[in-house]
């Protein structure tokens, strides 16, 4: 059963890499426009949970429902199309393409979805303005600061109008002032577009930008809203 109105739900997720169990019965659900922090110590299974939810890794057991559709049985090509059109990703180190300019990086997912260069870059610039990095549009990732690069990465994640943004330690490489600004901009932008954000973090000040938290410990997840 899916919690009423939830966009993405996971039930009884299990995943092992060889003899190592990474997830052992994890549960998760998120509503449109909601920011959920996934917290827990290193090695607890946070990133594996995020990768399963995003369709990057297939769980060994359990179900993942996105928008009423079961993901676990979908072929790779369908999952890949879903990730391109419905999901956005922000990683700890922006993972921008170094050979492209920042605006080309932000426009890239739009281009992959078939948009014309001019249209893609116009949309990209709008998002860069919103993330306060329009001044570095023509620069390459190597020429901008860590904080600027991460905002470019957030702009790229949001440019396609995703319904879920997966952010894995998005401020992990930034100082606290830059990190908080990135969180402010990311959560403001997501809320204004009603996108859900799955935020993996071990920093509580970052988690404080979420609406609620899921704690992963010993490879199991726990929805703290149902506990308190």
């Amino acid at each position, binding site marked *: 059963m899916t919690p009423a109105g939830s966009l993405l739900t996971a039930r009884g997720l299990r995943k092992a890499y060889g003899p190592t169990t990474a997830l052992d019965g994890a549960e998760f659900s998120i509503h449109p426009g909601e920011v959920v922090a996934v917290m827990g*110590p290193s090695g607890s299974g946070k990133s594996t949970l995020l990768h399963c939810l995003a369709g990057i890794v297939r769980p060994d057991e359990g179900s993942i429902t996105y928008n009423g559709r079961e993901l676990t049985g979908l072929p790779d090509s369908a999952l890949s199309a879903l990730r391109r059109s419905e999901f956005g990703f922000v990683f700890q180190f922006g993972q921008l393409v170094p050979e492209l300019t920042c605006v080309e990086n932000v426009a890239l997912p739009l281009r992959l979805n078939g948009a014309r260069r001019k249209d893609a870059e116009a949309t990209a610039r709008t998002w860069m303005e919103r993330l306060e990095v329009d001044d570095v549009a023509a620069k390459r990732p190597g020429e901008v600061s860590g904080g600027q690069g991460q905002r470019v990465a957030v702009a790229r994640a949001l440019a396609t109008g995703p319904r879920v943004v997966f952010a894995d330690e998005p401020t992990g490489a930034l100082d606290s002032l830059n990190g908080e600004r990135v969180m402010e901009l990311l959560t403001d932008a997501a809320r204004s577009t009603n996108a859900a954000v799955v935020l993996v973090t071990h920093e*509580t000040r970052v988690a404080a930008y979420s*609406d609620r938290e899921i704690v992963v*410990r010993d490879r199991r997840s726990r929805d*703290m809203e149902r506990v*308190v």
Partner: protein
Amino acid sequence: MSIGHTLLGLLESGPRHGYDLKRAFDEKFGHDKPLHYGQVYSTMSRLLKNGLVEVDGIEAGGGPERKRYAITEAGVTDVQRWLATPEKPEPYLQSTLYTKVVLALLTGRDAAELLDVQRAEHLRLMRILTDRKRKGDLADQLICDHALFHLEADLRWLELAAARLGRLAQEVRPA
């Protein structure tokens, strides 16, 4: 916090009435704990007695007379001394949280559960402060950041304690 020193510090920028002082204090420092009028007037009469402020003028209106206070030379020196003296760091030894964790272990209760629930409670307050910080001015941001860093320190301790629960249980349980 020393209310006397804070009021004296506020007077350094110019003479004020007791009511203005209360308002300035509440605006800048009293977000959650506004001053009572009684506190302001008892503090001012103490400062007056000690020669740290003087009455700069009295307005007689329809209601009770309103004294306007000005800081004295001795008052300025007192503020200067207060600002230059470092605050004693609070070591928070033997906190309630620590006691609860140890008691839970001693009595065979679920200490991990206790830590999870406490983390959720801390995060709930951190969300409120983060929201206030987002909507507030720079002064608000500084006040909230101060509280947030303290809560974060508590949480870091909670995570560390959670990671060490097994060992702690062995140490505190009677053999």
